[in-house]
């Protein structure tokens, strides 16, 4: 019992982070309708900022750096500056990205916030380098800010700092909730999210109110993470960035409307995770479930919350469905299909070593990107689980080939079907939720799969997850032979498999299946009224997409000879979504571009080999993603829209077209 109390209180440190990030997510959603995946990344910058200042007084900026004072800065000035950096990033994100996109479809907003998240995450190791800091970044640690006093309560040792963190989180949540409930500005902000035009007519500036909210939440998110950083440990960019996932989970528990519930759920989640961590050390706890339990909890929470609260979660139905990226139904033209395949075959023959390896990676990534085109571009279901499906298939492939000895084509098929089954399970929440909320559920699923399966030592033998080389009728299709990094046979096998599957996908998308997908994407109610079984079509989409991704994951596995979890992380998944969106998420040709630009594909090799930009890869991809969504948007672009608004302001006689309000789909 004492142990439980002790671990529950320890959990307040991460819990406070979830609580404040969650409360911030709710606040931004209430004020602007955006679900901000970059909330953790904003706070991440703040933590590094403080670490830099307190090590030797360097204020690192996105461009350049400034030396403040001669030595390490004092605690509280550094904390304030750090939190202020969160404010600045948040405000910049609002002004440069989210404000221009406030009428964009949800996919655009999700892509944009993922872009901001990746951008900051990639920028940090580049900017906080040894040269700017005057010391190795790996030597930085988050120095303590709060008291280190402890006391005992009923036998449990309790750190005062953890109580302070919980109190700070509650205080911040109360302040945010109070702002929305009791101040005129807060009430006006809520009104502005409902009807911007009406709020303008009443003499308020919705932009300024939203900017205030972005700035405030950036500040408090930065602040709480800075204070909690010494307790939650380390400065690893990825783990801070991914704090947004449990925060999103608690925000959903608060129905994206209740700051108080989000805060309470956040603190509780932190405690539950710590208690679980403690229980996993007990002898009776099953060893296979020791790793990743903490990451699985948010996914379970999301799924349970979504099912219990169901339609109670606010559905912003006032999206202009017509503004989605237009789709051109693909037509299979023999020449246009044969030419790229032949060209790729020639390229495979002409290249060797690393270049051929990257080319084959690009071919595989094309297949995985095609799965994103099918599910997100065509069916409109924003899924961030693609790479997790691929990894799950690769994982199954390893077990099937090494433990059971299933022969080649069957082993790949079975492994991909495993991913398909997983895809259907992950697709179930899509039956009740849509848009950005589905993106939340799927990123939580991806994280849970990553920690519970890929990084679970109980499921990975110490030799690693080896994958037996493929061979067909005694003919070896192995990726390596002697000193050859990648054989011709293997490369051609990949090309044939991917080409056949892409042709099949094109036929599906140009047929009744594609029409049903587009019907569901455009209008679920009308699709049901036209006789389309909407839930079945959604699950079909998830099944097909996860099958394609699964085959891709198997091919990646074969190309390495073993499954490496690093190929299938949430980050890689986001990069695949980014490149597919940049390529054009509604076209198969977009998938090919995504394949070329995707992680470890041809473009990556060009960056590393020729112009030494390898470190900048993620940053460039994130920047391309942001440019694509904000400036060269596939739906009615932000720039033309901005021009329209300006014109409308000059001649107010022409009101801007009112958003076509649509009721949430309500299909039995």
């Amino acid at each position, binding site marked *: 019992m004492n142990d439980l109390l002790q671990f529950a209180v320890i959990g307040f440190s991460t819990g406070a982070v979830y609580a404040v990030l969650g409360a911030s997510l709710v606040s931004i959603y209430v004020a602007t309708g955006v679900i901000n995946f970059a909330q953790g990344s904003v706070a991440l910058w703040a933590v590094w900022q403080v670490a830099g200042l307190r090590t030797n007084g360097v204020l690192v900026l996105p461009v350049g750096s400034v030396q403040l004072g001669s030595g390490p800065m004092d605690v509280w000035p550094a904390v304030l500056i750090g939190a202020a950096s969160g404010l600045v990033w948040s405000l910049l994100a609002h002004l440069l990205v989210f404000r221009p996109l406030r009428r964009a479809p949800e996919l655009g907003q999700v892509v944009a916030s993922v872009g901001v998240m990746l951008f900051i995450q990639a920028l940090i190791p580049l900017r906080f380098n040894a040269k700017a800091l005057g010391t190795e970044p790996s030597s930085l640690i988050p120095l303590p800010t709060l008291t280190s006093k402890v006391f005992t309560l009923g036998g449990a040792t309790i750190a005062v700092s953890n109580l302070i963190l919980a109190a700070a989180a509650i205080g911040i949540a109360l302040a945010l909730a109070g702002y929305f409930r009791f101040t005129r500005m807060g009430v006006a902000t809520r009104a502005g999210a409902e009807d911007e035009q009406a709020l303008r007519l009443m003499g308020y500036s919705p932009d300024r109110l939203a900017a205030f909210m972005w700035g405030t939440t950036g500040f408090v998110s930065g602040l709480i993470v800075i204070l909690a950083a010494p307790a939650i440990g380390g400065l690893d960019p990825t783990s801070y960035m991914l704090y947004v996932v449990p925060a999103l989970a608690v925000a959903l528990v608060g129905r994206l409307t209740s700051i108080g519930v989000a805060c309470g759920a956040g603190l509780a989640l932190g405690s539950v995770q710590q208690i679980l961590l403690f229980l996993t050390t007990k002898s009776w706890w099953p060893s296979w479930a020791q790793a990743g339990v903490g990451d699985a909890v948010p996914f379970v929470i999301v799924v349970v919350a979504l099912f219990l609260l169901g339609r109670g979660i606010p559905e912003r139905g006032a999206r202009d469905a017509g503004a989605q990226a237009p789709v051109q139904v693909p037509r299979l033209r023999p020449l246009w299909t044969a030419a790229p395949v032949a060209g790729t075959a020639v390229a495979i023959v002409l290249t060797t070593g690393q270049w051929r390896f990257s080319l084959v990676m690009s071919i595989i990534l094309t297949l995985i990107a095609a799965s994103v085109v099918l599910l997100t571009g065509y069916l409109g279901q924003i899924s961030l689980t693609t790479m997790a499906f691929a990894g799950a298939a690769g994982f199954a492939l390893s077990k099937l080939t090494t433990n059971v000895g299933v022969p080649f084509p069957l082993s790949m098929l079975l492994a991909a079907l495993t991913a398909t089954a997983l895809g259907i399970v992950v697709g179930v929440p899509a039956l009740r939720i849509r848009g950005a909320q589905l993106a939340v559920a799927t990123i939580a699923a991806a994280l849970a799969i990553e920690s519970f399966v890929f990084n679970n030592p109980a499921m990975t033998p110490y030799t690693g997850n080896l994958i037996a080389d493929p061979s067909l009728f005694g003919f070896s299709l192995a990726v390596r032979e002697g000193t050859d990094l990648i054989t011709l046979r293997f490369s051609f096998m990949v090309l044939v498999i991917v080409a056949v599957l892409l042709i099949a996908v094109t036929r599906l998308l140009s047929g009744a299946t594609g*029409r049903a997908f587009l019907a569901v994407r455009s209008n679920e109610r009308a*699709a*049901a009224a036209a006789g389309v*079984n909407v839930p079945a079509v959604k699950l079909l989409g998830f099944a097909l997409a996860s099958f394609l991704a699964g085959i891709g994951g198997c091919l990646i596995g074969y190309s390495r000879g073993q499954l490496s979890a690093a190929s299938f992380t949430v980050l890689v998944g986001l990069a695949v979504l980014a490149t597919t969106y940049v390529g054009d998420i509604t076209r198969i040709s977009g998938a090919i571009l995504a394949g070329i630009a995707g992680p470890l594909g041809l473009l990556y090799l060009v960056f590393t080999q020729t112009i030494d930009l390898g470190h900048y890869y993620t940053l460039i991809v994130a920047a391309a993603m942001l440019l694509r969504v904000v400036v060269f948007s596939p739906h009615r672009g932000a720039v033309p829209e901005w021009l329209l608004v300006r014109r409308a302001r000059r001649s107010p006689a022409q009101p801007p077209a009112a958003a076509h309000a649509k009721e949430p789909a309500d299909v039995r």
Partner: protein
Amino acid sequence: MSGDPNTLLLTRDISVQYGGVRANDEVCIEVGAAEIVGLIGPNGAGKTTFVDAVTGFAPHTGTIELDGVRLDSVPAHRRRRLGLARTWQSGELFTDLTVAENLAVSVDPPGLRGLVADLGRRRKRADEDIQEALSLVGLEAMAGRRPDELSLGRQKLAGVARALVGSTRVLLLDEPAAGLDTEESAEFGHELRRIAASGPGVLLIDHDMTLVLDVCDRVYVMDFGKIIASGAPSDVSSDAQVIAAYLGSPVTP
């Protein structure tokens, strides 16, 4: 049960509860083959709710029969496949698909069989059905156009065609003439007659009294979720209750 063997759609005691509001209260109607039946009533009377309930888009109590087959626990898309089709007040066409493709969605069911069919040979049979439905509403020339290239009136007609295509037995039209001018409305009434003559029963909901009284064989009047009158158009239009519902009752001192 109805004594009329011609009856296609029969609803009994359809009730819909939205929170504390009883939006439909024990509504019973009948629609026969090749018959145009009107459902009129003031704004907020519960007409659209009734269409939602009958087509599976609103939870309801009571029974719905289509040609003797109980539909009340069947999901919306199955009702459509069984021949009970509807349109929406706003066209609700699929914006990414051409008019012909919009209709094709209703003809080819997706699913595992559809997958195999897509991978194999193309189906040609559907094209004839689509052409026939488009010609019934006079939109043959628009087959290859996208919805946003069509006028509002034509978008609505395309919506009607989408509901007609295939083996539709009963068609529920939710304010198909709203937004049309007098001439377009009269033209639409004419087309409606042609549609009904080709077999399906039609339940027409509209505010345009001229249209309803002109084309309907029978009319139901709904107010506060209840049917308050029914009968031939001429009888209904002179019914005191109906006049009260539309114009308000005379003030009693």
